[in-house]
């Protein structure tokens, strides 16, 4: 009998090994390369197109400089202190505004997701706010806070918070009921059910909300920096405006490239977080 049992156990373990193939994917380097080359190719095509337009002579070179000129300008700019100060101030505003939006959006999102009355009262208002162009907030912001840091942050927070709140609400709404039941069966109730089941299950949607919130924050911030120029506070937006006033097209384009690069970098970070979240939960195709 004992012998039979031992044999059974090893059959079971043998089946386990057969049933779970350990898949050895391509090497890290190969994966990086396969992700990178289409992007590099696209970048090359954009620059080539730009150069081609310049060569057609559609606009004078001082209005539309060639890519080479802009890249040289960008290189020389990065050796100036004012550039780094501007980038620093802009990034700090982005971080502070986004963080405040994350806190506010999370509180509102959780409250609306949990409290039925609040859902009825402000659920559609939040979606409405999300569709409101952030630039429309500036006149009010300037009235309330004058031309100050606070005016910019006010608009950044209002731009980003609704998306973050909506991400939480949608995530909580779409938690599979089976997982909630499973949570209740293993002894999670009320706050512990939220902590151990609802929020982890909602995480992909919460992350998507944050990603969208960031995009709105960054756009609002750029609009704000063009409109609200605070004395002695150089920022990317202020430098962009300044370049236009001086008709310094290479510098203007160089700052635009910086804005795009920061946006892409943060977006890539969100995409990486999302990928690893999905991979850990087995939500990706092998």
């Amino acid at each position: 009998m004992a012998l039979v049992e031992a044999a059974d156990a090893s059959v079971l373990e043998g089946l386990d090994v057969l049933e779970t193939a350990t898949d050895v994917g391509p090497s890290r380097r190969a994966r990086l390369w396969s992700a990178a080359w289409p992007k590099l190719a696209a970048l090359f095509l954009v620059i080539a197109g730009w150069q081609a337009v310049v060569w057609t002579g559609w606009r004078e070179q001082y209005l539309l400089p060639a890519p080479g000129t802009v890249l040289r300008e960008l290189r020389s700019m990065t050796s100036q202190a004012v550039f780094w100060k501007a980038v620093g101030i802009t990034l700090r505003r982005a971080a502070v505004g986004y963080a405040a939006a994350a806190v506010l959006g999370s509180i509102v999102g959780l409250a609306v997701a949990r409290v039925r009355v609040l859902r009825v009262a402000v659920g559609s208002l939040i979606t409405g706010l999300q569709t409101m162009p952030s630039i429309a907030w500036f006149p009010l912001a300037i009235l309330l806070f004058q031309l100050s840091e606070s005016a910019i942050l006010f608009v950044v927070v209002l731009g980003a918070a609704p998306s973050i709140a909506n991400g939480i609400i949608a995530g909580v709404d779409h938690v599979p009921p089976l997982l909630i039941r499973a949570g209740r069966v293993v002894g999670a109730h009320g706050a512990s059910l939220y902590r151990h089941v609802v929020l982890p299950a909602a995480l992909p949607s919460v992350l998507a909300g944050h990603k969208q919130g960031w995009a709105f924050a960054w756009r609002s911030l750029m609009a704000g920096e063009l409109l609200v120029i605070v004395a002695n506070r150089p920022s990317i937006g202020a430098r962009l405006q300044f370049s236009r006033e001086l008709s310094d097209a290479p510098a203007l384009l160089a700052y635009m490239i910086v804005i795009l690069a920061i946006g892409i970098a943060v977006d890539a970070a969100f995409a990486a977080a999302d990928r690893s979240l999905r991979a850990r939960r087995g939500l990706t195709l092998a």
Partner: protein
Amino acid sequence: MTIVNDEPGAPTPVPAPPVASDAPAPAPTSPASVPAAIRCRGLSKAFGTARNAVVALDRVDLDVRAGEFVCVVGASGCGKSTLLNLVAGLDAPTRGQVDVVGRTALMFQDSALFPWLTVADNVGLPLRLAGMPKGARQARVEELLASVHLAGQGERRPHELSGGMRQRVALARALAQEAEILLMDEPFGALDAMTRDLLHDELERLWVERSLTILFVTHNVREASRLGDRIALLTSRPGRVAATFDVPFARPRRIEAPEVSEMAGLVTARLRQEVARHGPR
């Protein structure tokens, strides 16, 4: 509905439904002096609103004695999952009552593991929620995984496992709850025959070792004959217990044993008869 916990301090595994506090347990009607672990009396459950309600269960009477292994068989959609959900306290009955003496753990038809947790954390979650400190928990989880022959697999994620392994993790998670009563909803329905036979042996061993009470739902009549002390046949529309069969054979049984096949044949014949009642009129 009443849930009678034998330990007053024991955590009720469900958000407390309205409890009829003045309901004394009526004298057990089950044979022998063994107390009933589960008593369903006139248990009914309808889904939906009055006009287009689906009656999933209609006046079900069922007793399960402590330590008994009862299998519920029935065609798809006859209310088997509904019955388990009511016993587990996840749903409230429309009419009738369930008395449960002891704590229940429910294993779902689908493994229902949490995809964001590792295997070990899935099994450890009930312990964590019960307040067990981390060190003790790790040791306990290893023990539980070993008891379902998954020792050393704790760091994997549910999606990396086969269906059979996932069901064993779900079983370990159910065992972690230290419940006296195990409710199982077609736990091996999606598995191949060889894995299923091995898991039958495992389950029988755990049932004896831990003196569990098991209410096991399946649509597989052979499986029921292999495992059960008793088989309750549930019919569809309305879901009702049409017959119960005693399975008197000695254990451990083999699913291919002639007496098990014979029993399965008997139950199947009755099941056919019940289904035929719904045939063309």
